[in-house]
Each structure stands twice: as C-alpha cells, then as structure tokens.
C-alpha cells in the first residue's frame, strides 16, 4: 500500500502515478475484505450444511468500488491523453516548465 502512495507522490510520470493510485486502491480493498473475513467461514452463498459465513457487507461495498475504480482510472487516463496532446509530454516536471515559460 505504501508503495502505491510513494509512487503517487514521488514520481513525475502521469501514467505511473495512475498505476500507483490503483495499487493504493487495491490495498484498501484488501484491508476491507480482511476485516470481513471470519476464520473457518465459507463464502457468503447459502449452502446446506454450512453454518459460518464470512461477512457479506464488505464484499458488496468493495465489489462496487472496484467497478467505480476502473471508471475513474479510465477518466484519469483520458485526461493523460489530453495532456499529452496539449503539452507533448506526460512528465509532470516538463509540464510545469512549459507552464512557466509561457
């Protein structure tokens, strides 16, 4: 998780930043799912003869979060494409330089 965070704030490449954001996101998902786990529990699909299920609520939240996550990732990547077309680079530092030189 911290690796993702580090990537977001330390690297200048915008595509890499988005990948870092994704890693960050997946780590948060892992945290949620691990909270919902019950030792010895089964997947939350009702079957006969099974008494102990893991907590379905985090699963629901994370399920929707993943799909929303890919939608926001796509939006970020679209922005990257537009930035590339406008500035000719996807390195943050070079974009700043161009802004200052204008």
């Amino acid at each position: 998780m911290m690796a993702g965070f580090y990537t977001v704030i330390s690297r200048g490449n915008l595509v890499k930043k988005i990948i870092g954001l994704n890693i960050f996101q997946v780590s948060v998902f892992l945290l949620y799912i691990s909270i919902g786990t019950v030792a010895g529990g089964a997947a939350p699909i009702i079957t006969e003869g099974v008494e102990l299920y893991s907590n379905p609520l985090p699963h629901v939240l994370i399920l929707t979060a993943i799909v929303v996550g890919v939608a926001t990732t796509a939006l970020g990547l679209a922005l990257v494409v537009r930035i590339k077309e406008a500035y000719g680079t996807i390195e943050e530092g070079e974009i700043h330089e161009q802004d200052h030189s204008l």
Partner: protein
Amino acid sequence: MTHNLILRVVSKSLIPLIIVFALYVQFHGDFGPGGGFQAGVILSAAIILYALVFGLDAAEQIIPSGILRILAGLGVLIYAGTGIVTLFSGGNYLDYSGLVGSQIAGQHLGILLVELGVGITVFSVMLIIFFAFAGRGRP
C-alpha cells in the same frame, strides 16, 4: 493484427464462449458468484478481444457507438425505472416485495431486473471508454 492466422482462429472460437459465459454470470448471479457488474465487464471483454484481433472498424460495425450510448442510458433507466414501478406497486423506492405475487417472487424479479440494468450499463460504458481510447489513435 489482421494477418495473424492463429489469433483469428482461436479468438473466433473463443468469443462465443466468452459471451455465453457472460450471460451465465449475468443470470446465474443469484445462485453463484457473479452479477451484473462482472457480466458487463466480461461481455465487453469479448467485444474488446474482437476489436483487437479483427480491427476497430469491424467491431464498431457490430455495435455502433450510437447504440452503445443509448444502451448506457437504457441500463440506468431500467434500474431507476424498476424503482419507480415499485413505487406504483405500493412499496418504497426499490422495495421489490410487491412487484408480483409473493414477496420472494417479487424480490427475485426485482433483483434480476436491477442486475440487468447494471450489466447493460457497465457493458456499454466499458466499450464506450475502450472505443474512445482506441479511436483516438486513428489518423
């Protein structure tokens, strides 16, 4: 990639299987793992594979982007419309118990409709996004 024979043959036999699997995931989501979100993504993956192997234009001939935009809106409408219908059948918004006959049948139908709306929206939005990215690269 239009010249690659192996890819063409393999993907031709693979794409129908992927589509059938997506439909299975969509409608079997009540009983096993799966549901609208997954089914939509798998279905769009089938079309994306087709676009990668046979070219973007061929894929856009199967599903024109105009239809995709309508489908994306239609999915949300199915979802929200189910909620409106439940209002008329005497329940709260998105409370499916009064849809048909018994409570369980109503819930089942409601969940099925809602998942269908989710599936259609996810499928078409994923394809819209992919076509937007891929179409950008064309001269």
